[in-house]
Each structure stands twice: as C-alpha cells, then as structure tokens.
C-alpha cells in the first residue's frame, strides 16, 4: 500500500488484530491540571492529562494547557487525590444564597431610610 503521506511511507504499517488492543491503564492515570494566569491569581482548574507520575504530568500539562493560553505556572495532582461533594448535594449549599441568611450579608443591613426619616424629622422640628 502506498500512502500519499511520505511520512507514512517511511513506516511499516501493521495489520490490526481484533479484540482488545490496548490494555486497561496502558495510557496511565489522570492528573487534574490547574493554571495560574498571572501572579496574584487563584489557580483555576482547566482539565486533565494522562501521565505516569507528577513530573511528566507537568511536562504534558505545560504544552496541552499552557501553549496557547497565557499563564505563569501550573499545578497538577492525581485525580484520585481530589475529594469533592457530589453535585447532587447542592441543596446543602443553598444557605449561601438563601433569603433567610441575609443577616450575614451586607445587603441585609439598611439604614438609609432611617437616616432620611431622622433628618426629615429634625428639619421639620426646626421650622
């Protein structure tokens, strides 16, 4: 078989055996990648890479996540080392935005009406 790709013609192409060709975990394990856009920024999760260990995970992450997007550093950690709540428990976090919890939010404290009323009362009294 002759390919139009001269690169390919330099290779000897194999037959494809049936069945399972790649074994489980032949592509190693996954590391989650976080990038830091500029000094002073939080690291932000951007994706993952397959790698056998952290050093190579960093080397891979550098090109996969740092070759196009501006960034000054990257973090990686094993996916299995991240502990997370289930998204299904999101109701547990509802209290952060709940109306009943206004007492710990700046918007729960309003004094302008009082002050205006007080000022108006005073000026009325002066008349």
């Amino acid at each position: 078989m002759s390919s139009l790709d001269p690169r390919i013609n330099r290779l000897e192409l194999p037959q494809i055996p049936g069945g399972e060709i790649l074994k489980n975990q032949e592509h190693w394990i996954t590391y989650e990648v976080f990038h830091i856009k500029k000094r002073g920024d939080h690291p932000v999760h951007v994706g993952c890479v397959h790698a056998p260990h952290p050093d190579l995970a960093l080397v891979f992450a550098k090109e996969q996540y740092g070759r196009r997007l501006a960034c000054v550093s990257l973090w990686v950690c094993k996916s299995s080392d991240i502990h997370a709540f289930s998204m299904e428990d999101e109701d547990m976090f509802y209290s952060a935005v709940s109306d009943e919890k206004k007492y710990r939010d700046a918007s729960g404290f309003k004094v302008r009406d009082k002050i205006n009323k007080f000022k108006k009362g005073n000026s009325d009294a002066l008349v």
Partner: protein
Amino acid sequence: MYGGGYIFDKLQDNQVNDDPEKLLLFEERIARGEKIEPRDWMPFDYRRQLIRLIEQHAHSEIIGALPEGTWITRAPGFKRKLALIAKVQDEIGHGQLLYSAAETLGKSRENMINDLLNGKSKYSNVFNYPAETWADVTVIGFLIDAGAIINQITNSKGSYAPYCRALERICYEESFHLKQGHEGLVFLATGTFVQREMLQDALNRWWEPIMHFFGPPDKASVHSEKLMKWKVKMASNDDMRQEFLNTYVPKIWELGLTLPDPKLKKNTETNKWEYTEPNWETFWQVINGNGPCNKERLKVRMWAEEHGRWVRDALKTNQLTQSVPLA
C-alpha cells in the same frame, strides 16, 4: 474539527428502567438550562449516547490529524509549515480534551481507542478521503474547519458540562484554523493560473464529502426528539448544512471559483439554499469502511499505538484505584 452527531444508537429498552422520579428531575434541570455534571444521576441512554457522540468526536480529531499531517513536511514556506504543524497539534490536543470528557462518563480512553481500531466506533467520514495536493490542505483548513465550527458551536450549547467545557476551548482554537485555512486558500485563488487550477480541482473533489459532512437529511423520529430534549443533539443536520452554505458558499464564489453543483443557489423567497442531494449511498459505504482511506487511517493509528507501547509500558504505574478525570 468535526462533523458528526449523526450516528446514534437506537434507543434501548432498558431506558424504561430509569427511575421515573429521577428522570423527571433530570429533564427539568435540562429544561431550566442547567448543565449535567459527571457524577449526577443520568438516564442510561443519555450516558450511552453521549459516550458515543463524544468518542466519535475525539476519534475524528486524532484521525483528522492524518490527512493534513500528510503535508507537514511538504508545506511551502515557513509560515504555512509552522501554522500547519500547530494546527495538526491542536487536533491532537482536541482529541485529548474530548477523550477526557468522554472518560468522565465511565469509558476509558484505552477502550475508546480499541473501539476505534476494531471499527466498532466511527469518526467523521470526511477524513477517509485523501489530501492529494497542497490545495486540498487549504480546502480542508477552510471549509472542513468551517463546518466543524458550526457543528461544535452548536454542540457547545448542549447539556453535558465536561463536553461543553472542552468545546469552549476547542472553538477558540478553531477560529485560528479557519483563518489560516482561508488565508492559504485565498493565496492560491489570487495566485498563478496553476495555483488556481489546483484549488479548483481540490474544491471539485471535496464538494461531495463536504455536503456529506453534516450527515443525511433529518427525518423526524422519536429518537432524535428525545436527544434534542436532552440537549445531546442540538440542531438538525439540515439546519447546520444550511448555515454552512449560507456563510461559506459566497466566500468561495467571491473568489471567482465554482462548486460542482449547477443547482446550488439561494432561494430568495424561502431564504434557503437549494442543492443537488449528494449520493448518500456513497456516504454509508464510506462510513462502513469502504472509503478511499479508511484502512490506511486506522493502520496508521494502530502503528502509533503499537510503536508507543514500549514507551508507555516502561513508565507504567501500578495504580490500584481506577482513575477517571473529574470534570
């Protein structure tokens, strides 16, 4: 780049086993415009069809790297050469992002590649055609990538969060692909007689695969209705094809080039493009492995996996836990 989402499995019976209460909540969430995350409950068939969709997309990227890869060593001049290597590199990068998104649904990258190699899983038909001349590279870079962008922007509004996140990044990079393809094509179109001839010839050969790109005309079915409701399939094949024709045919015509379809024109009353239906029999033939390059494409991928094996094995880790990307 990609064109697909036209091969879905038939709905299976075991979907009736989905808990109706959970299904209701799930569908309400999607209707509210919320995204589904990997560890959410999801219907059996949602998971299955998404894996199918995303893995096809991923395969299309790594196989799609091959027809253009053909021209890396031969690309004329520094600018075209560097842009082409960067573009093919992006396709591999997109494959990496998409396999990771599919992995969050529980199918390993190894198994996806196994299914690609043994023919169980498909990829976009368009990559089973040869890139014969340099002009083919510009036609692929402009028109196929244009189709891919339409397809991917549409899919990026879907319901599965990891897929949407991957597509967001991919669409950003595709805009570079489209520009570099357009520039290469315009240089040929406005160049010498020989360059123009070469380009016209490439357009003539690629027109049918391009018309096949968005898949066969839609027929209303329960199947696609459900996938649309779940926001797995986001637009009909015909709508995407219309959008493509509307944006890109004028960009070919303005260069004084022709497309090999005498019927191709915009109907000013309906505002729709009219065209000769491409041969859909050919389309199915190619999907089923009988295109001009199917065998070579898979063998080349097999070569890469086979020759990379000792490298991967040398660094293999003995992890007890299964490793799945989180998001």
